[in-house]
């Protein structure tokens, strides 16, 4: 009996933790959706990195990711079945290629190239998150406006 109670308490605690974490992620998906114009589910294929001189003898790291498109969610990707986008990071920071399919949010620069919308713009391609990404954007207010692309 005691053992069952302990298992129930443990299960409840785990569920509560999962629930809390998911709420943070769900709100993150909403914010990324509300503040970007492009959303897509992808499967990463490869990446390239290069160092770009930003200031005299100061470099930052530009990584170009290549991926197959699994599902187009928002924005015009025309007839593409694959895409590439770039992301900036500190020089020397490690970069990796995610194994799982991802729901990502992108921006476009003045040269019409996609770039990663930054921290809080990449999520596991969980159907719940994809569903939220497909929903209409909320009307942006002071609370929900975030500088994702600028």
């Amino acid at each position, binding site marked *: 009996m005691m053992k069952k109670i302990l298992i129930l308490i443990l299960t409840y605690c785990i569920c509560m933790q999962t629930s809390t974490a998911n709420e943070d992620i769900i709100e993150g998906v909403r914010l990324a959706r509300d503040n970007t114009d492009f959303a897509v589910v992808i499967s990463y294929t490869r990446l390239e990195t290069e160092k770009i001189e930003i200031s005299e003898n*100061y470099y930052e790291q530009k990584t170009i990711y290549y991926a197959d498109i699994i599902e187009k969610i928002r924005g015009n990707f025309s007839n593409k079945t694959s895409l590439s986008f770039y992301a900036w990071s500190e020089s020397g920071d490690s970069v990796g290629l995610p194994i799982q399919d991802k729901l990502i949010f992108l921006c476009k620069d003045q040269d019409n190239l996609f770039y990663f919308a930054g*921290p809080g713009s990449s999520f596991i391609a969980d159907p719940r998150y994809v569903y939220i990404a497909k929903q209409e954007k909320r009307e942006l207010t002071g609370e929900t406006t*975030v500088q994702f692309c600028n």
Partner: protein
Amino acid sequence: MILTYNGYAMVQSTGHSFECEEISLPTHFIHSSNTFDLYKLSDSLYRLEPKAKTSPILEHLYIFNKYEYQGMRGISGSQKLFQKLNTSKKITLKFDMNYPWVGTAISQLGIKEFPGIKANPEVMKYHKAAKYGTNNDSADGDAWCGSFIAWVMSENGFTPPKIAVRASEWKKFGKMINKPIFGAIGFKFRSGGGHVGFVIGQSYDGNDLYILGGNQGNQVRISKYPKNIWAAFIIPEKVNTTLSTLPFYSGHSSKRGSEA
């Protein structure tokens, strides 16, 4: 509490006072132009107080050894008193500390993200403070510099901005100031993110800043950056910056973004 990092003694703040015992790592220090009054409390206990009531200096990085005080460039008046300290075993430093969060940040030096899918719980606590839902410490290229600032500021009673994991969100925190000062949050812009860290010093020529931040080479560390790449400096709203300065830094750092 005394922390050591790469051969430097660092004394963590405990509220508004600092206590040093048996400091024995004399090689480097961060100096200020402040002067100090020294009070002998007993044969083995001294109190050192800055004359400026609001001292922004890296007091907790001053380093003493058992025999003499090293450096103290620009100090007048009190320097002789320091020389009398050569037998002291314990020094109590008491300051009107304006930027206690820097001590918190210093306590995290050396925390690294784990490679691959493993997550360092120390980095995950930063993400938790930023209310950023993730199961990985640096998942999918997500930087954690903003989360690090969120944890440090939360530990010091400040509420981070809504999406603290994003560096640019920190521009909404506190007030913008027009020049870097000790303890300010520096913001560096780039498309799709940016970088944030605490300003803790400058180079002697004034062309570089020393930034204590998270996710600098995949870890918390002090790095040297060109001054001209920083777009904004932010400080909590209620902090009085009237007497704030930026000390020269001569301690250990990595040089960020250099091909050298």
